Each structure stands twice: as structure tokens, then as C-alpha cells.
């Protein structure tokens, strides 16, 4: 039984009168990849954002590595978590190198140490080293995503959070990055939590799927579990709502 690294207990979050999250209980396994899936507005992004303190529950508690997530200790906790959003969330005024090195510099890393780590990560994320001097505006969508990953991995955090990381990419690049990410996650052995609306991508990248609807967790398990033993018809409908080329024939 793997240890859980994130634990949500009775987490409720309201936007005005609407409930975004309704008493969510959730355990996320350490060292594995978990995908939060579900229709729009299900609350999957809210859950992810709560894991890193960008949103706070109105009731209930979020625990990270046994400690409640609190504003006082947030800075240290965030440094143990890498965070990547769609398009990478790069700072447009900083070069690729400066984007990636910003936090390390703040923490007083030496130039050599930063350069060495960047070289390692560029190789790991298959980012051509000559792109390090460029600015985000000079990169393609896929390259930006890789830089986002490099930046998130800079301090070698045990956890990686990805919010729709491949959402804005064209199919070929997306396919290529999916393959590389899967390899990367297996290689790194980190805890990865990602949000996606694409079931196939989730099934391909993640060990565990968490299917959410209307601010609740409907079912948690492997892709196979969700297909073979769905808790209700919606799970089946969601898992099978995919077109294949055969459909077109």
C-alpha cells in the first residue's frame, strides 16, 4: 500500500453560492502519477490549485506530507512542489535560463551549480541547449512546455503538479510530449498530479485516475477499474466518450 502524500479531508469550497468542491475526501499516492479528470467545472483544477495554496478551502483541510498546508509554512512547502501550467506559465521578460534559474538564484545557488543543473534538465526534457538564451516569445508551444518542466524541476522537488500541461499543443507535438512525459515520470519516480480533460491522455500517463463531477470525487482507481467496475453510468459514459478512426468509417 503506497503512502499518501496529499490528503484532502472534507474539503469544501464555494464561489458565491455555488459549491465548487463539496466535502471532498481524497488521498494521492506518493511516487505515482495521478490524473484528475472530469467535465468542465467538476472542480479538478480547484483541487490541484489547493495542493499548492493558490486556493484555500472554506472548510476542511489539505495536508501535504503529513503537515497541514498553511500560509506560514507555504513558501517552504511550495519549494518541494514543481508547478506547470498550460503554455508553461513562463515570465515573458526573462530568458529561458533566467526563468528556470530565478528561484535557485534567490536561494543563493552558485553560477556553476545552476549551469550544471540546467544542462542536466535540458537533456532530460529534450530541450536544445541553445534555446536557453532565448525569450519565451521566441519559442514554440512545445518548447515552452519543456521550459516549464525544466523550471519546475530545478530544485528537484519530490512532487510535480501539472494543470492541463498539453492543452494548447497541436496533435503531433502533443503526442510526442505525451510519450516523453511518460518516460520522464517513470524515470524520475516523483509524485505527479495532473489535470486533463482528455481521458486517453490520463490513462496513458497516470497510474491512478480521479474522476470528478460537480465538485465531488465520483471514482478513484486505475483506468481499467473505471472501465470495468464503474460506480455509475456517468463514469462509463465519461470513460467511453471517445471517437476513434473506426467511428468515422
Amino acid at each position, binding site marked *: 500500500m503506497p503512502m499518501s502524500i496529499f490528503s484532502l479531508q472534507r474539503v469544501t469550497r464555494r464561489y458565491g453560492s455555488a459549491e465548487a468542491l463539496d466535502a471532498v475526501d481524497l488521498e494521492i499516492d506518493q511516487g505515482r502519477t495521478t490524473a484528475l479528470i472530469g467535465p468542465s467545472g467538476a472542480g479538478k483544477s480547484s483541487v490541484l490549485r489547493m495542493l*499548492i*495554496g*493558490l486556493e484555500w478551502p472554506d472548510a476542511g483541510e489539505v495536508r501535504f506530507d503529513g503537515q497541514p498546508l498553511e500560509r506560514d509554512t507555504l*513558501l*517552504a512547502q*511550495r*519549494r518541494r*512542489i514543481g*508547478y506547470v*501550467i498550460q503554455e508553461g*506559465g513562463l*515570465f*515573458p*521578460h*526573462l*530568458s529561458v535560463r533566467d526563468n528556470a534559474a*530565478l*528561484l535557485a538564484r*534567490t536561494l543563493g545557488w552558485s553560477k556553476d551549480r545552476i549551469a550544471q543543473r540546467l544542462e542536466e534538465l535540458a537533456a532530460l526534457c529534450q530541450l536544445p541547449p541553445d534555446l536557453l538564451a532565448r*525569450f*519565451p*516569445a*521566441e519559442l514554440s508551444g512545445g518548447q515552452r512546455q519543456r521550459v516549464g518542466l525544466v*523550471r519546475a524541476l530545478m530544485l528537484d522537488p519530490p512532487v510535480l*503538479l501539472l494543470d492541463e500541461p498539453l492543452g494548447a499543443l497541436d496533435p503531433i507535438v502533443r503526442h510526442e510530449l505525451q510519450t516523453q512525459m511518460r518516460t520522464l515520470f517513470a524515470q524520475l519516480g516523483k509524485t505527479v498530479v495532473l489535470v486533463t480533460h482528455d481521458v486517453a491522455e490520463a490513462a496513458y500517463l497516470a497510474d491512478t485516475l480521479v474522476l470528478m463531477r460537480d465538485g465531488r470525487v465520483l471514482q478513484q482507481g486505475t483506468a481499467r477499474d473505471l472501465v470495468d467496475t464503474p460506480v455509475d453510468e456517468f463514469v462509463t459514459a465519461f470513460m467511453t466518450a471517445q471517437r476513434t478512426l473506426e467511428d468515422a468509417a
Partner: protein
Amino acid sequence: MRRVLWGWVLLLTALVGPARAAEQATVGSKNFTEAVILGEIAVAQGRKAGVEVTHKRQLGGTRILWRALEEGDIDAYAEYTGTLKQELLQQPDASDAQVAAALARRGLGITRSLGFQNTYAFGMRQTRAQALGIRTLSDLTAHPSLKLGLSNEFLQRADGWPGVRKAYGLPQQANGLDHDLAYRALQSGAIDVTDLYSTDAEIPYYHLVVLDDDRHFFPDYQAVFLYRLDLAQRAPEFLQVLKKLQGRIDADTMRHLNAQVKLEHHGEAQVAAQFVGVTAPQGSGRAARILRRTGEHLALVGISLGCALLVALPLGVFAARRPRLGQIVLSLTGVLQTLPSLAVFVFMIPLFGIGARPAIAALFLYSLLPIVRNTHAGLTGIPRDLRETAAALGLPPRTRLWRVELPLALRTLLAGVKTAAVINVGTATLGALIGAGGYGQPILTGIRLDNLGMILEGAVPAAVLALVVQGGFEVFERVMTPRGLRLAARA
């Protein structure tokens, strides 16, 4: 970013730093020619006696001079007894002793009359008056057909035409006309008599005589110097200088001095020096004058803008961080902006005296809004996902502010500073009204002397400076905008 800020601080200390040289005495003057001449006479007389006197020229109206004297910003200025009694002490019937006592309570003293008074009077062409044998106001009663053209204000005031008419039983009807036109009307014979001030420069110029107020209808407006009593200890020589001027200037002399400045376009300092009998100080050339005023103007703008930056930047950051309190900050700085600038300049006098300091304070207040508002707008305009990513990375708040948020807000922020700077360059010309110098000085003098060339000597450099500042900021903005942002803007 931080380097830029330190640059400002250094610049400010450099500008404020130099200590003022020790001066022996300071004389002020109101914003009209006669007052400025009297100030210059005090300076010239002082130089003759070996006292170094600084002249703060054309500081403004009566109230400003009075307050400056009370506050010790100046040591003396020329005043008229009528104004002193009615406006300043509000004891119109006070005796000389009572006036002296009232002044002494405020730590002030008064000289005896300088030898002339400047009051309302009636004037006629010399030849016409002689022909008719008119020397006094009473003489007018014998000539009911004379045409009187009076300035509109004088025509209305109770202590003007209605009063004179009643006191002397004058039979004539009077028509209203513009004061400046009156002299030409006299010349052409369209009117025979007009009202004037008894030391007007035009009196000798147009060969007019002032009719004697033989029934003493008009109040006494003897010219005197008011001074601070502590001069007796601090600069006794200067007090002697002022007293030496008692009874020295008669009305005719004053008229000629006024005419030399106003009609013959000599400088006040030259005219005063000639009167006192000393050599006039070498007047600086136009280029040197403009250069000096540019320095003064830049100091006003630079210091006020620098201080505003130091205050408005944190305020803008605060307003962006705390939206609710931020609204209050924005509203308050907005209210400051709606105050009429002239009023703000004058409000600063009780707090900062006269000179550059109150002007800098007023300009400082005016600079706040554009900088606060644009800092706030720049910071809140940063896309939410970038702000969140910076936080989620675990960057400390300071790093987030300095390395991410301020650079991203820099363009908007600099646009605010530019607006403040350009507005400041224009508004700073008002500083001359309270003795701050700068480009406003020649504008003010030019208006007083009706000298277009002099007005342009201030207005043109001010306009040029505004353009230079505008252009400079645009270049600065381009240089300061990170390359990544320029690329992003093009993409």
C-alpha cells in the same frame, strides 16, 4: 529597477545637499513693477552700505508677503499704509502709534514714509489743466462740461467715483472705459479727466498732472518698508539702510522710475542702482539667464518627482496588494489632483514658507496620482496565471515584486511617471508665484511688464523642456523594457 531607485535617491541628495551661503538680509517684493523697483532700491542701497541683500522678487500678493515677513522668510518688503491699516491690521482709523504697536506685537516694525504715496487720483493732460487753471479736484467744479472717462471698477466702488463726486460736489457725468485705453483717450482729447494711481509710469510719459486731493477724500497710501524687529540684532546695518530711504523718493521720482522700467524697458536693478548712485550689477546674458532658470526648473521638477516616486511607488504596490484600502488610496490621490493648482501652491506657504520648498511640496502632491494609479494598474494588469506561477514557484514576496511583477508592470508604471513629469514641467511655472524661480519667473515678469519677449523667454523653454522630458521618457522606456517583453509585444 533597484538601481534606478538608488539613482534617484543620490540625485535628490545631490540637489538638496548644498548648504545655503550665509546671507545678511532678505527683502521681498509684491508682484508689480513699483514693488519690485523698491525691492531693488533696498538691494542697491544695501550694496552701497556693504550689506549683502537678497531680493525675492514678485512673490505674490499682499497676503503672501505679509505672511512671509511674519514667518521670517523675508526680512522686509515695501507696503502702503492704507493697505496695512485696512487689509492687514483691519484698523482703518488707527493712529501711527497704534499701527506701530500692532506691528510690534507681531515682531514687526515700520519705517517712515519713503516720500510718496500711491493712491487713487485724477489726472489731466498738463496743457489742458494749465489752460483751464485746474490744479485741484475742487477746481473741477467750475468746469461742468469736462468729459470724465473712468475705469469701470473705480466707477462702481463706493470709495471711488460716487464718493468723490459727493465729497467735491462734482457736476460732471462720467463714462466707463478700460484703464489702458484711458491714456490714449486723454491724448486724443476724447476725454479730459481720468482716474489713475498717483505714481503710474504713464503720468510723466503722457505729460499728465495729478490733481491735488485738497479735501483729502482718498485714504493715505504712503509707501513704507515693513521689517522684522529682530533685524536690529541680526543685521543692524540693513535696518539703517531701510531708514536711510525714508523721505528719499518723492511721487515724481517714483513715476519716473516706474516709467523707465515699464515704458522704456530698463531692468529694475539697473534703474534702482542708478537712483541710488551705485554701479548696477552686471546683468547676465539671456543664455545664462535661461540656463540658470533651467537649473531651477529642473530642480523643482526633479526633486518633487523623485520624492513622489519614493512615496507613490510603495503606495501603488500597496493599493494593488490590498484592493479595498487601495481604492481609498486611489480616491485620495485623485482628490489631490482636482484641487486648483494655484490654491495648492498657496496652501503650502504656511507649511513651508516661500521659495522652492512649498513649490516642490505642491508639485509632489500633483505627481502622486499618475504614479500611484499607473503602478496599481500595471501590477493588477499582470495576467493572473503569471502572478500565480510566481507564487507557486515558491519565490519570496520580495523577489516576486522586484523580479517579476515590477518588470512586468514597468511599462505602465513609466507611462505614469512620464505623465507626472510632463504635468510637473508645466505646473512648475506657477512656482514663480511663490518665489520658487524657474521658467515661471520671466513669464510672470513679462505679464507684469506686458513684455511678450520676456513671456516667451519662459514659455518657450518650458514647452521645449516638456517635449524633451516626454521624448526622454520614451527613450528611457524603450531602453528599460526587457527584450523579452518587446518580443512578446511584437509576437
